[in-house]
């Protein structure tokens, strides 16, 4: 694969320190995260890897302000997330974060255009400006000719492009993608990764969760999780290390 240039990082966006997350299920407590510290700067491209159940999704939900930590400190652009109420969290999710899901999560009865407009409605943007912005990003992801298609009239790869466009439309500080290629074949997955590389080169910050080393190889930094802890966190992608990490009992 052709690795493009790595860009210089910008200011600190995400700063978490010693984050834990417990799920209480009856008498048992699941420690999904046991003390994770991470600093992410503007225009980084990070892959989060690790075995199933290691807490990758939990960490992503935390970073995306969908969930609040049991303990620890979380600052987003210098603001303390732990002190925010529901509406403030919603505002952060709306303006600062773009989510891309494994299952696309498009509204089935709405066209691509309407799906992409959705975050803009919640941002209170005028209908005309809304449509213009949505059309613009749909062109960016290469779907200029699929704007009035509904999700069931699109291929899996196209659906994920719509989802990426939706994540991008409000110009978020950071894009969070939890296994964005998990439901796609490897060729379509590569197309999405090309799109991400393109977004990265244009100055976006991307964090993606993946199981696949080929996918993770696109990122400029790799974080390995195991049992709710960061096992390794290093620049670039080292296949051998990843193999070691996965094969350990």
């Amino acid at each position, binding site marked *: 694969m052709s690795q493009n240039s790595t860009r210089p990082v910008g200011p600190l966006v995400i700063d978490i320190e010693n984050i834990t997350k417990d799920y209480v299920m009856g008498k048992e407590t699941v420690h999904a995260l046991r003390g994770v510290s991470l600093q992410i700067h503007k225009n980084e491209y990070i892959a989060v890897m690790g075995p199933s159940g290691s807490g990758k999704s939990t960490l992503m939900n935390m970073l995306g302000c*969908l969930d609040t930590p049991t303990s620890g400190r979380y600052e987003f652009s210098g603001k303390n997330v732990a002190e925010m109420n529901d509406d403030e969290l*919603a505002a952060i999710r709306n*303006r600062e974060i773009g989510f891309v899901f494994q299952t696309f*999560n498009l*509204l089935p009865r709405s066209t691509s255009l309407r799906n992409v407009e959705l975050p803009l409605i919640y941002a209170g943007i005028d209908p005309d400006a809304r449509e213009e912005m949505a059309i613009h990003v749909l062109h960016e992801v290469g779907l200029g000719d699929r704007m009035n298609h509904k999700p069931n009239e699109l291929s899996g790869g196209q659906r994920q492009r719509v989802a990426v466009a939706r994540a991008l439309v409000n110009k978020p500080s950071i894009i969070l993608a939890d296994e964005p290629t998990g439901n796609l074949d490897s060729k379509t997955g590569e197309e999405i990764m090309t799109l991400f590389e393109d977004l990265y080169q244009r100055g976006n910050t991307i964090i993606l969760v993946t199981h696949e080393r080929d996918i993770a190889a696109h990122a400029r930094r790799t974080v390995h999780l195991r049992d709710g802890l960061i096992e390794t966190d290093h620049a670039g992608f080292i296949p051998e290390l990843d193999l070691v990490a996965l094969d350990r009992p």
Partner: protein
Amino acid sequence: MSAGRTGLGPVFRDMKRFLYELSESWKIAASQMRSNLTRSTLTALGVIIGIVAVTLMGTAIGGIQVGFDKSMSIFGDDVLYVGQWPWKKVDDWWNYRDRKKIKTEYADALNHMIAMTPNSNLMIAIPTSSVIRSVKYADSEVGNVLVRGTVSDYIITSTFDFKEGRFFNDLESRGGANVCVVGYDVADALFPSASPIDKSVLINGQPFKIVGVIARQGSFLGLFSLDSIVVMPLPAFQKYFTAKSEADILVKVKDKTKLAEAKDELAGLMRRVRGLPPEKKDDFSINEQQALKSTLDPIKNSIAVAGLFITGLSLFVGAIGIMNITFVSVKERTKEIGTRKALGARRRTILLQFLIESTALCLLGGIIGLGFAFAMCFLIGIAFPSFPIQFSTGLVVISMMVSVMTGLISGFAPAWTASRLDPVTALRYE
């Protein structure tokens, strides 16, 4: 960042966002109804039935109200009635039973005193005396006719119009001529084709010449007809029907805004007529339309409340259907709710969305129901013209408001549940 985008104050931006969310919610509700057409129709049916029931009951109550007011108006709101009994329920009826009867002669005495009183609030006192008799003409006969003797000035206190002819005049009144005025029903029964004017009817075997026919007045509270009546001069009445001069006295007041003063004045005059010493209580009753109204109002109101309550139950059942379907909708779309929250929907946004869905369903049901109710009223009006039905714009507005309220109330619990969903849990939902 986003403040710089619009350059507007945060309050204004919030308002704009609210409007956009509102219009988005209506669109979602419409598409939701369209894509679940059968389900929506069946659920709306509950509301349709409820609104039809409530609206029809409302028109019936409106009809009763109009009939009631019309019945009341025959008493006139500027006339006082002097009688032995008060127009209300009394617990000590035995105290009233032994009162002295009211006499026709009191009218003359009262009129005399009114004339002597400067700035009197009273205008004139009219004696009336009544019996029930049957009235004959040729081979036809009508029974249960109210035969009333009075004076020519009776016309001043009355509210009726004439279909043809006139009321008897002063001369006929004083002389006790054998003339009479008949009600619509009497004229209709005895003279179905010809004009009754100048014909003579037989009452108690005596002939009375008809000089006028009163226009149709309808019935009193639907209980008895006001058109089954014959009115004649008092001397003639006393000569042929009763030697006793038992009577009711009607007193017209000059200014109906001073009814209370007029009533006090009349009570004073009556006490003088009766020669009551100061320590004795009144031994007569002075009645008025308003007093009768306030006696009958509670009865009328409890009929209305009971009717609305019973029909309201059917609307309640409809509301439960709406609540149920909204819960189903929330459940089905849990993942969608999670997605919307991830994209920045706030609790209020989600709450609004589902409230509008339930309200849109109810409003649709309400509009259809109102259409049905209107059609049914129209048909009932054609089939049974006398059935009291009153369809008003006020009723349309109220039933629309009731529909919206039903939607809001029944949608609230599911919408609240949806708005409180934890985004992560909702996103995980399959």
